[in-house]
């Protein structure tokens, strides 16, 4: 009990008992020492001379970025178009693949527990690996270009859409599903009439949300050769053309803001 009696017989109220207090203290101690240990590892691997120089480097960088070389924007339209395509086609492809996977992974729609664990494995591996890594792999396999980017985005999206969708499927009301099965409907018809209408809004929302994230991700895929505006970014950085880099940043910033606005509007309209 948090209320105990002091030696003078006056009841003393404490937020937690002493044992819990000790545990909490220990946890903090452990956490802080772990943090300091990690900090030490990082600090050992850092050249502090460079860090001391950071302020000057930063202001130098900024001065080279300013003013942006605006005429460079004219050759960015094509890469920007590619970037949008990578995001949109990649999302579409990812959704098409994630849809069946989610139904196989949801506890209430899976045909067999074994299939379920397989589907969950697909989802986990897709989610754990960043789209940039997928792009790196695909570039070595397919060669550099937009196609590698599209597939990388698609592979990464399977896990995201699949996970959120199968959670939505597991949360549906069971009674309409029961009612549809009681009419003598087949398995696919039960999915189509009982499950699908219930998860459709969630599905549309998740897809648009992922598209918005994918726009952001596809801007950097070019760094590993998978097409889009990242290629130009990489080239400008390698030639130290920082005034071009700043133009690219402005374009990315604007695109991401617009896509975020669109996605928020669409999700708002659905819900």
């Amino acid at each position, binding site marked *: 009990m948090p209320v105990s009696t002091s030696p003078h017989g006056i009841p003393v109220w404490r937020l937690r008992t002493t044992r819990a207090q000790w545990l909490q203290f220990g946890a903090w101690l452990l956490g802080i020492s*772990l*943090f300091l*240990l*990690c*900090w030490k*590892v*990082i*600090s050992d*691997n*850092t*050249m502090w001379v*460079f*860090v001391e120089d*950071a302020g000057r*480097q*930063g202001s130098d*960088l900024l001065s080279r970025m300013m003013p942006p070389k605006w005429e460079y924007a004219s050759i960015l339209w094509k890469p920007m*178009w*590619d970037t949008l*395509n990578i995001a*949109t*086609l990649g999302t579409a492809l990812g959704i098409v693949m994630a849809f069946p996977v989610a139904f196989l992974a949801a506890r209430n729609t899976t045909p067999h527990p074994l299939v379920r664990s397989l589907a969950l494995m697909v989802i*986990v*591996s897709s*989610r*754990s*690996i*960043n789209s*940039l*890594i997928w792009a*790196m*792999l695909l570039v*070595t*396999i*397919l*060669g550099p*270009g*937009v*196609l590698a980017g*599209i597939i990388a985005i698609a592979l990464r999206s399977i896990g995201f859409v699949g996970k959120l969708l199968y959670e939505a499927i597991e949360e549906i009301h069971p009674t309409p599903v029961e009612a549809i099965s009681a009419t003598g409907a087949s398995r696919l018809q039960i999915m189509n009439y009982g499950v699908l209408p219930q998860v459709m809004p969630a599905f549309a929302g998740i897809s648009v949300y992922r598209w918005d994230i994918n726009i*952001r*991700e596809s*801007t*950097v895929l070019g*760094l*590993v050769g998978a097409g889009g505006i990242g290629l130009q*970014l990489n080239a400008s*950085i390698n030639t130290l053309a920082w005034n071009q880099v700043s133009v690219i*940043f402005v374009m*990315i*910033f604007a695109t*991401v*803001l617009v896509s975020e606005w669109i996605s928020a509007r669409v999700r708002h309209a659905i819900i």
Partner: protein
Amino acid sequence: MSEHAEAYLDARQQAARQGQWRRLPLIHRQWLRWAIALGVVVYLILALASVEVNWARVAEGTSRGLRFIGAFAQPDFMSRSGDIVDGLIESLTMTLTSTVIGVMLAIPVGLGAARNIAPLPVYVVCRSIIAVSRTFQEIIIAILFVVMFGFGPLAGMLTLAFATIGFMAKLLAEDIEDLDWRQVEAVRATGASWWQTMNHAIQPQVMPRLIGLSMYRLDINFRESSVIGIVGAGGIGATLNTSLSRYEYDTSAAILLIIIAIVLLCEYSSSHVRRWTQ
């Protein structure tokens, strides 16, 4: 309009009586329906046409792809074990420190970005920090920080911390904006100061979710720490990049498997922590 709708409904009822019924179209206006369908088709044609595929290169790469998939059957943890362990330690330390620092910095920014407790100028500043941090991919920030702070895990840690600020502060601010205001007023009514209000009314409402989100962010930071190595910001990403460019697929497969395993472990333990705090 309502007259039109009535006539439409009447027509549909008459048709249904005769046994004619079609699903209600999702978009009521017919021309709009066609315009959207046409737009989608035109976009798909334009977009697919702009995808250039070098089939000779793809054919050449297929064998490599098969080799890579085969490598998952026998991943090689040993021959580069030194590099892998170094990369992993760097990644994990970056993850932990960046999450701690990021969350600590996100709290004031998040408070400042909540419209109901922050004055307007503070609100604008905090919201723009969030916008910048959320718009740019971690990897772009990493490039800038590598230029400023030199190669190594410090740049990576700062990158992840910066990204964490945007993520956490946005969600925290949204949480504060729709928390239960009656409790805050109840505490204020006792004559509590601003700090006391924060401590007794807002913190208890926001804390469980804050801890949950921090665990989630830890998980994201680990995943991100595996890529920012590509631009020289330390971590397992650098090792992975090297192994891929040397075509040592069995080592790459090993690294990917380790990443998947750690992410799984993170997710599992974070769900436990979340249940424990709620």
